[in-house]
């Protein structure tokens, strides 16, 4: 962990005291604007952007630490979307200095020219990076827009935006589709990993505290092993996550896409397994609205298929492998 990352981690810890995490309570929460405003003021969505482009410096690794830590504490914010959009738009003159940008991913919108698209947290946005399946990304700024507010299974905004008057920025200034998907894929992995840690912590506390058949649940071998299984999933996901971050740091964003796909697949699998085991070990307590677990597991279920589904990542990675030699498979794709 870099020095900056450690400071950022301490900052999240501090923020978590100011804006208590929803870990202790399971009831539905309003979109957490106050925490988000603070994060904006502190410039956190601009980590990983050089200062001369309006950023606060630091690397993607540092941003990933913040995303992961917020997720572990159970805070839901547009940090993944806003920071990816800000990174993509750095240096683009047309972007409003203060307004929030979000990202619309390919499968969420159809055809060109784009006047109507779906984006997570779209209701907060003044501009958006629109990623197309078969065309270069666009940056769209808008003054007014009709927003149809909807939510995913975790209660987080997934809004449809219909732009009235838009300025479309030339794609030449923007990162490629692959680069955008790689960066967002890493941060989604950070969020999944953080949430899975949160689920693990809740579950570990539960089985240490609850007694059954006159002993703590944690003393039952099957329970202990199930918990350890969750832990192995976290270790594996962390390894894949760091591998993707290393690739981002050590090569071009486009080259990072393959390790990101791998990390994102592993994170999705860990998400599914953790959610299942956590609910199993929690028993009836875990399916009550009041208890926090479902607030974490809903995010795992929503995010494992967010932006690009696990299945799509797997198909994409598989197709890449099937067109490669064993040499490339060994030296590049799995190294």
């Amino acid at each position, binding site marked *: *962990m*870099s020095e900056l*990352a*450690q400071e950022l*981690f301490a900052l999240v*810890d501090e923020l978590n005291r100011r804006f208590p995490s929803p870990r202790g309570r399971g009831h539905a929460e309003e979109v957490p604007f106050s925490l988000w405003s603070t994060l904006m003021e502190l410039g956190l969505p601009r980590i990983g952007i050089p200062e001369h482009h309006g950023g606060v410096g630091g690397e993607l*690794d540092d941003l990933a*630490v913040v995303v992961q*830590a917020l997720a*572990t*504490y159970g805070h839901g914010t547009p940090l993944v979307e806003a920071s990816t959009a800000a990174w993509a738009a750095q240096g683009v003159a047309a972007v409003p200095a203060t307004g929030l940008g979000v990202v619309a991913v390919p499968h969420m919108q159809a055809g060109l020219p784009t006047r109507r698209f779906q984006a997570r947290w779209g209701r907060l946005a003044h501009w958006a990076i629109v990623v197309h399946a078969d065309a270069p990304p666009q940056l769209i700024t808008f003054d007014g827009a009709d927003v149809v507010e909807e939510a995913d299974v975790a209660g987080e905004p997934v809004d449809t935006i219909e732009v009235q008057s838009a300025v479309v920025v030339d794609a030449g200034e923007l990162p490629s589709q692959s680069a955008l998907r790689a960066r967002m894929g890493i941060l989604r992995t950070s969020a999944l990993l*953080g949430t899975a*840690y*949160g689920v693990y*912590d809740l579950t*570990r*506390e539960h089985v240490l505290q609850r007694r059954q058949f006159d002993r703590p649940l944690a003393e039952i*071998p099957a329970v*202990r*092993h199930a*918990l*350890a299984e969750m*832990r*192995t999933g976290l*270790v*594996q*996901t*962390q*390894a*894949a996550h*760091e*591998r993707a971050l290393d*690739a981002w740091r*050590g*090569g071009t964003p486009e080259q990072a896409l393959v*390790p990101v796909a*791998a*990390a994102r*697949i*592993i994170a999705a699998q860990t998400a599914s397994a953790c959610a299942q085991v956590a609910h199993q070990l929690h028993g009836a307590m875990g399916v009550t609205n009041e208890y926090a677990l479902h607030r974490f597991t809903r995010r795992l279920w929503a995010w494992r298929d967010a932006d690009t589904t696990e*299945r799509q*990542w*797997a*198909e*994409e*990675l*598989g*197709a*890449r*492998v*099937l*067109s490669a030699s*064993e040499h490339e*498979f*060994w*030296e*590049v*794709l*799995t*190294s």
Partner: protein
Amino acid sequence: MSTKAADDTGYRRRVRDLCTSWQAADRYLPRSDAWLRSFDPDFSKALGAEGLIGVSWPTRYGGAGATNRDRLAVTEELLRAAAPVAAHWTADRQVGPAILRHGSDRLRHELLPRICSGDIVCAIGMSEAEAGSDLASVCTTARAVPGGWLVNGRKLWTSHAHRATHIYVLARTARMPRRQDGLSEFVVDMATPGITVSPIADMTGEHHFNEVAFVDVFVPQYRLLGNQDDGWRQVTEQLSFERGGPERVLSTYPLVVEILKRAAARPADTATAAHVGDLTARLAALRRLCWDVAGAVDRGEVPVMEAATLKVLGTRFEQHSVELARKLGLFGEEPVDSLFWQTLLASPAFSLRGGAAEVLLDLVSRQEGGRGRDTFVHHATAGG
């Protein structure tokens, strides 16, 4: 773009060159489980001559003084090539490191250089009848006599004992209340009178397992490893070494390559592509974990949880690769001696090596024992 290229310092290429030339000369046939089953002392000697055994050991003992990540480069490439490494594998992976940590200086000088040259074949005398995964259930004894010890007992499932020059033996040197106490480790010369090796064919019909009987086998004092009666602690450390290796992931690599080759003939089948993507992601994560574990050992850490995770998930990956081959319908009417059946028949043994999943999961959960309420701080700081 290999994230590890900087660490390889030529080791990968040197291993690859050797394996390629041997394969080109038809001197070995790649197969699954080669590190256990493909036994060729000539290959091991050739590898030793290239300085590719014991690379992480000090040069004064014949090693190359390289890092554990360098060693990983060597072992990964050997496993990738499914080279016939069984003759030196155990010495390089288990017995050598144990001698290096706990052996007397005389023992180190006597054996380590010869391990590095590929001249020593080691077997492991750990399991006994009726023990199963209860490794502390040791009935073999070592009784102190002038100048050394007399070993009596029987060891089971000792791979390659019939070809071994030396055998590692875990024996009871004292009766203590806790049966984990009072054990000691020895390295015994197989040429010592009193040792009888009886073959145990495995279900593939191959002979690598043996039963080894010891009757009043004299072992000189300097062949005791570490502290008398403290063997359990030492062997537990050793198991954590053994757990971290890529041989827990790559035993079926030849079959994985064959799956990819056949799947490539179905480019339009998205389900097949998705399965291949999943397999690739798992392999990539596990190789990274091997690399993390080697790096941690280089930094002087003892990454018990990571190593145990690698073993649990690596074994599952190996089994998954066999199941996937069948599930995808890529292997139909395969001859009995094909890669598919060879791997399937080897697969029941995958999960037996180095501890059952339950034992490993217990290790993982014990690592968590002393942790406070909120584990994220630890995760985050240990992670970066």
